């Protein structure tokens, strides 16, 4: 199987996956009682008496397809609902949020940006720290530095993010007062933004603790993987050759060994996107960081089903995209992968 065949197979798989996610998302919300109950509550509202309004509501929330000449409801079948739902998901029309009555997409914009900022910073930092320390650990394999690094990274890895977040708030926000304990920016900024210098500085201050929490949670995995692949790479003949040529140790480590060992690290970074998102939901909640994860969490309390549905879909979409990208990159970079 050549590269083209491999890619084709991956893309077809991705489409099947997308279909599966849509069906699952539909099934959970449609066949299970939560949303139906919320809609029933809406119609049970004693303030709504006018049959016209009720009819409009019934059409709007998809309970009835239309009304016959006598005014009786023609109920929407599950299939009808699925077709319109499927179309809406593919065209990213998630409807209006039940809480704010704005389109979900419009409410999502600023939150998406916040989430991407947090995730971007945390992923970049954890990759850099994890890879650097992983190389160091592999280079000094068996020494006390190595075992110390591995122990510390296993510890931070096994501490749950919510606990780490609370600890940081306790120590850095509450006792030392160095950083704010939450929010993306001070709430008084609603009244007016300060000048650009203060703006950036204060935003960074707010970003620090959540980013630190996520970074500490992720770098351990990168460190252990880098250590494993680097240890293997360092035993290869071409390393001995490079050393024999008299190349400086830094060149040997980073140009020769790391370059060849980096493939699994890069793919793993893409594949762990789902885990990162899960971590982000919790971290955002702990630090009141107004992102997608916190929104998903709040939507439960508000019984805001369009938002819930949209968030699950978008998050799943991100993960699927990350998987596809990692597959494609892997396929292009590593010729062995095509002949599975």
């Amino acid at each position: 199987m050549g590269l083209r065949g491999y890619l084709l197979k991956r893309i077809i798989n991705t489409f099947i996956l997308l279909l599966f996610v849509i069906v699952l998302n539909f099934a959970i919300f449609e066949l299970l009682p939560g949303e139906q109950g919320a809609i029933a509550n809406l119609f049970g509202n004693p303030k709504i008496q006018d049959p016209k309004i009720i009819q409009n509501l019934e059409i709007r929330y998809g309970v009835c397809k239309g009304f016959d000449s006598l005014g009786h409801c023609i109920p929407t079948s599950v299939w009808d609902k699925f077709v319109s739902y499927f179309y809406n998901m593919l065209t990213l029309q998630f409807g209006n949020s039940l809480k704010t009555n704005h389109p979900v997409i419009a409410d999502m914009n600023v939150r998406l940006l916040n989430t991407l900022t947090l995730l971007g910073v945390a992923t970049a930092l954890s990759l850099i720290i994890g890879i650097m320390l992983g190389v160091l650990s592999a280079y000094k394999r068996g020494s006390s530095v190595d075992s110390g690094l591995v122990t510390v990274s296993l510890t931070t890895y096994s501490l749950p993010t919510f606990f780490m977040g609370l600890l940081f708030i306790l120590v850095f926000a509450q006792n030392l007062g160095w950083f704010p304990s939450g929010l993306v920016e001070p709430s008084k900024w609603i009244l007016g933004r300060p000048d650009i210098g203060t703006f950036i500085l204060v935003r960074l201050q707010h970003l620090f603790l959540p980013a630190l929490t996520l970074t500490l949670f992720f770098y351990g995995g990168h460190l252990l993987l880098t250590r494993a692949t680097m240890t293997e790479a360092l035993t290869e003949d071409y390393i001995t050759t490079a050393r024999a040529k008299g190349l400086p140790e830094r060149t040997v480590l980073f140009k020769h060994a790391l370059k060849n060992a980096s493939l699994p690290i890069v793919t793993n970074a893409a594949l762990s996107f789902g885990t990162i998102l899960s971590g982000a939901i919790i971290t955002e909640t702990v630090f009141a960081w107004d992102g997608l994860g916190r929104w998903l969490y709040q939507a439960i309390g508000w019984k805001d089903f369009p938002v819930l549905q949209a968030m699950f879909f978008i998050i799943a979409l991100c993960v699927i995209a990350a998987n596809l990208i990692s597959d494609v990159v892997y396929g292009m970079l590593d010729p062995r992968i095509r002949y599975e």
Partner: protein
Amino acid sequence: MSQTSRVPFWVVRLRKFAVALLSNRLAAVGVFLLALFVVMATAAPLLTPYTPGSQVSGAFNAPTWITAVKGPAGYSQNIQFASLTVNSSAGLTVSQSNQTAQSVDLQLSSQGQGGTINLAETLLYPYQGAPKNFVGSATLVVSDPQNQSFTVAAFLERVGEKTWVVWDPTVVNGTRLYSPRPEIRSDSLSFNQKFLRDSPFTTAQYFFAPRPATYHYTLQITLPPAITNVHITVSKFSMVLLGNTWGIFGTDDQGHDIFTQLVYGARLSLEVGLIATGIGIGVGLLVGLMAGYLGKVVDEVLMRFTDMLLVIPGLPLLIVLVATVGSNLIYIILYLGFFGWMGFARVVRSQVLSLRERPFIEAAKASGAGTGYITVRHIFPNIVSLTYVSLALSVPAAIVSEAALSFLGLGDPTVVTWGSMLGNAQAAGGASLAWWWIIPPGISIALISLSFILLGYAMDELFNPRLRRRR
């Protein structure tokens, strides 16, 4: 020879396994930690007399041992006035019966000029900090068919310094039940207003000084002349002082004992982890065996399905399920089980694929064994070791997932788990978190995960021939 043959084979194997496992230092640590948590979980009712929902003391009490770190100044513990004594002035006929620490039956008569009877309780207050709250009580059941009038009152005295009238003299008249009005308690508004108007103190700080002192809580019955045969049953005569420290780990915002919650939380965590993983292993084994051994279309379909489930982000799915289906602990265990088998199924499948080609399977086939027989007798025993490793490594994942859900407040609202302890701490804390409420459950989650991970890696090393060290 005869001696060894008496021991069943599996006992020998188990013993060898245990010895091999414990010779690994990290595995020994893991076993020790795990044993600690199992003891905590099983012996929970013995370790603590309370239940997670019972209110034991005031809110946000620090652990008692904090006095050892920060010194005794400013800290107090729960303490109670000691048992009552009865003193009466001359000229009264008093017969007492049924006396206990907090109650007594009195039969009173007076001649001449009358007199008083004092029921007193004493407290040697040992702490260097004022109590946070106090509750005093007294119940008098007066039985007097002749409806004679006399007065009762209650006092609180800091010996040698000051006396407060905590129950204003009240006229008792006839057969009835009497108790102090307003109630003698520092969290009662009307009681506080009686003593302090616009004062920054609480009455607890006002009455009880932050230093050792002796206090008397006195119930005084004053009889005018010529009272005959009044029967009074005094009960619940006590005063309880609630300090600002409590127990091993202090209390939460509702005055619940954190140590109790922690101990019972171990039970729930282990339950969630083990049952969810059990389900996951069962499903994973089934799918993996079917995919690996039946092959072809079955394999393709099952593995594609597994891949799909693997890609779906776990926590968002859990959140959506909890929001739509329900958040009963049993449901949560089921979600975790039925969405936690995919990795294991793939491992089993690849192992089965390699086993299927081995000569001993071919030999079994040649001698006429069926698919079921081969699967159960030949393939299954060869993947049991994988099961142990997977069990050890997916238990912490289930525990942490449940904790995360509970932390978000999406867990079972009827039980207190380690995750919900952390969630409550954050929700109640606002700007000020109580460290004694956060650190114990957080560390417990980390340690129970660590114990399973250590065990898992050690078993992996034992069972996985590629990783086996040369000795």
